[in-house]
């Protein structure tokens, strides 16, 4: 197959007019919606998506059709949230979907809402994407004007309202219960599960939260069928996936590939390898919250849920961060620990205190005041955090921390013994520790 055959989601990426309703419709857009509304029962839509084995693209990889099935049959008031909070460092794929092709996501959302009989959908876009909020709102307005949203959509009797909701700068609002609380007009702090949102979510009503990429995949699946979707990918990781790639590779950006592609092939043929003068040191495959893989280990994996798990990491959001030899791993983990410390919502003591300590200790190391015992202390703090909190943010901090320590321990030790090579910290001189 050629590269173009993999374009389920990215057909209009990079095209100037791809965001317009007229262009989308002229290329087969809203055909799936018309098909669904002209007589497919909601249960059948759910069934097709379940059969496709589409797994949620927000990070956890939970099967989308199965999640939809948790909404109690006959529920009167159901809400649907499209999660476009996209704040996981390294991740910028949903932005491409909404920027270049908002109607694909809107169509996918309408079909998904119909499948669970929701009457109101929110697209929750992170506040930093102010420019994107306007663009998506424009597309939603276009859809309303064309009778694709609102009362009696396309004469089918199905009603759906859609609200574009702008976040205000909080990573934790990407967590589904945090997101729901945020739209209720509260702090975006996660709630304990169960109950799961599908049973009791927004305003205590059944609520589905799905990632942008998950819903954007739905129109293609409806148009082409579950079997066609499963022709891409592996048995348990079906379909294509967007990888947003950052770091000094020749072709950074968002790439769509069938799941199961060897990393080696992706790295050489799609990313073009490293830019001149840089060498590959390590890869974070699925956003900053998953364990890092040294280059040699990365070269052995295939890009799917199973192979990454076997290698001790996760596919996550597909936010792939390519780390060059010239990067100092202690410096990078300090950046990340600052992030998690900053973004902890503070409800759970292990997370609030733990992220604060991890950041403090790493900072101390880089400030030249660390000891070898600090490395054990880091592990000790991590062990007191993982799995003990309301939401997985604590684990999201622990996973990079422990993996950096495990895989790159000599760099930590060299720093403590002041034998780290000169120039290694050139991007952020030691001693400058304002963070």
């Amino acid at each position, binding site marked *: 197959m050629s590269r173009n055959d993999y374009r389920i989601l990215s057909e209009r990426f990079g095209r100037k007019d791809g965001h317009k309703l007229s262009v989308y419709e002229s290329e087969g857009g809203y055909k799936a919606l018309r098909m669904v509304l002209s007589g497919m029962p909601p249960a059948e839509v759910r069934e097709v998506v379940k059969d496709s084995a589409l797994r949620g693209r927000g990070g956890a990889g939970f099967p989308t059709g199965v999640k939809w099935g948790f909404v109690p049959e006959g529920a009167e008031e159901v809400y649907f949230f499209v999660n476009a909070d996209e704040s996981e460092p390294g991740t910028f794929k949903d932005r491409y979907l909404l920027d270049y092709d908002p109607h694909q996501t809107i169509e996918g959302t309408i079909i998904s809402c119909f499948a669970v009989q929701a009457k109101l959908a929110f697209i929750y876009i*992170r506040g930093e994407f102010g420019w994107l909020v306007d663009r998506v709102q424009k597309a939603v307005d276009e859809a309303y004007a064309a009778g694709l949203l609102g009362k009696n959509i396309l004469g089918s009797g199905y009603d759906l309202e859609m609200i574009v909701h*702008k976040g*205000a700068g*909080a990573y934790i609002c990407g967590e589904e219960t945090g997101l729901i609380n945020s739209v*209720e007009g509260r702090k975006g702090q996660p709630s304990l599960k169960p109950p799961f949102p599908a049973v009791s979510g927004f305003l205590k009503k059944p609520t589905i939260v799905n990632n942008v990429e998950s819903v954007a995949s739905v129109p293609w699946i409806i148009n082409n069928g579950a079997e066609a979707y499963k022709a891409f990918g592996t048995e348990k990781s079906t379909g294509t996936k967007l990888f947003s790639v950052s770091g*000094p590779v020749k072709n950074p950006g968002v790439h769509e590939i069938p799941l199961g592609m060897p990393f080696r092939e992706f790295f050489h043929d799609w990313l073009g390898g490293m830019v001149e003068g840089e060498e590959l040191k390590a890869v974070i495959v699925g956003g900053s919250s998953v364990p890092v893989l040294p280059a040699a280990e990365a070269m052995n994996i295939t890009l799917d849920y199973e192979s990454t798990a076997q290698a001790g990491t996760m596919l996550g959001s597909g936010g792939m961060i390519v*780390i060059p030899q010239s990067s100092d791993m202690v410096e990078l983990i300090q*950046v990340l620990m600052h992030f998690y410390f900053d973004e902890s919502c503070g409800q759970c003591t292990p997370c609030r205190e733990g992220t604060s300590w991890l950041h403090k200790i790493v900072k101390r190391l880089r400030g030249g005041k660390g000891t070898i015992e600090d490395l054990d202390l880091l592990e000790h703090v991590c062990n007191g955090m993982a799995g003990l909190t309301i939401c997985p943010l604590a684990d999201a901090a622990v996973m990079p921390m422990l993996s950096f320590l495990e895989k790159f321990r000599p760099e930590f030790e060299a720093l403590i013994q002041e034998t780290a090579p000169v120039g290694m910290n050139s991007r952020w001189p030691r001693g400058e520790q304002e963070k």
Partner: protein
Amino acid sequence: MSKTQDMKQEFKPSPETLSRVDKLVEAYPTRASALMPSIWAITDEMGYVPDTGVDFLVEKLGVTKARVYEVLSFYTMYRTEPQAEHVLQVCHNISCHIMGARNVIAQLEKKLGVRLGEATPDGKFAIEGAECLGACGHGPCLQLGKHLYEYLTPEKAEDLLDNLRKGVVPRADTDRELED
């Protein structure tokens, strides 16, 4: 009293903001759920939310004052004090860091004579560190209001400052989206 507090003004909603909030209350399923977008409405008009803005929200949305302040302080993009004219938010997260964000920050600090997190005494510029702005493959990057500047270098950052000083807001990489 800090200088910015001296500059605080009363919130007297413009007719546009009033009707925007009324429409939000109409569209959102409960009045309280319209809180975040209503805060944005005030922010878009004033740049921040003064105490009188909070009173307005309490009355319009039927929520407590404590709830409004809680929400205002939870989200980093909401502000309760007047801001510098140009707030340069430079991403200092991992991908941008790898691509040289520190050099961009250093250049801005040098040219403005302030450190990250500070504003210039004339209230014209502030530099803030931002967590990942969703432009990781286009980094280093910097956000200025609704404009996102990507693929930055220290030189480009300096150019941006020069332009802003002349009153020109250069075209950002994402402005294409705002135009058509």
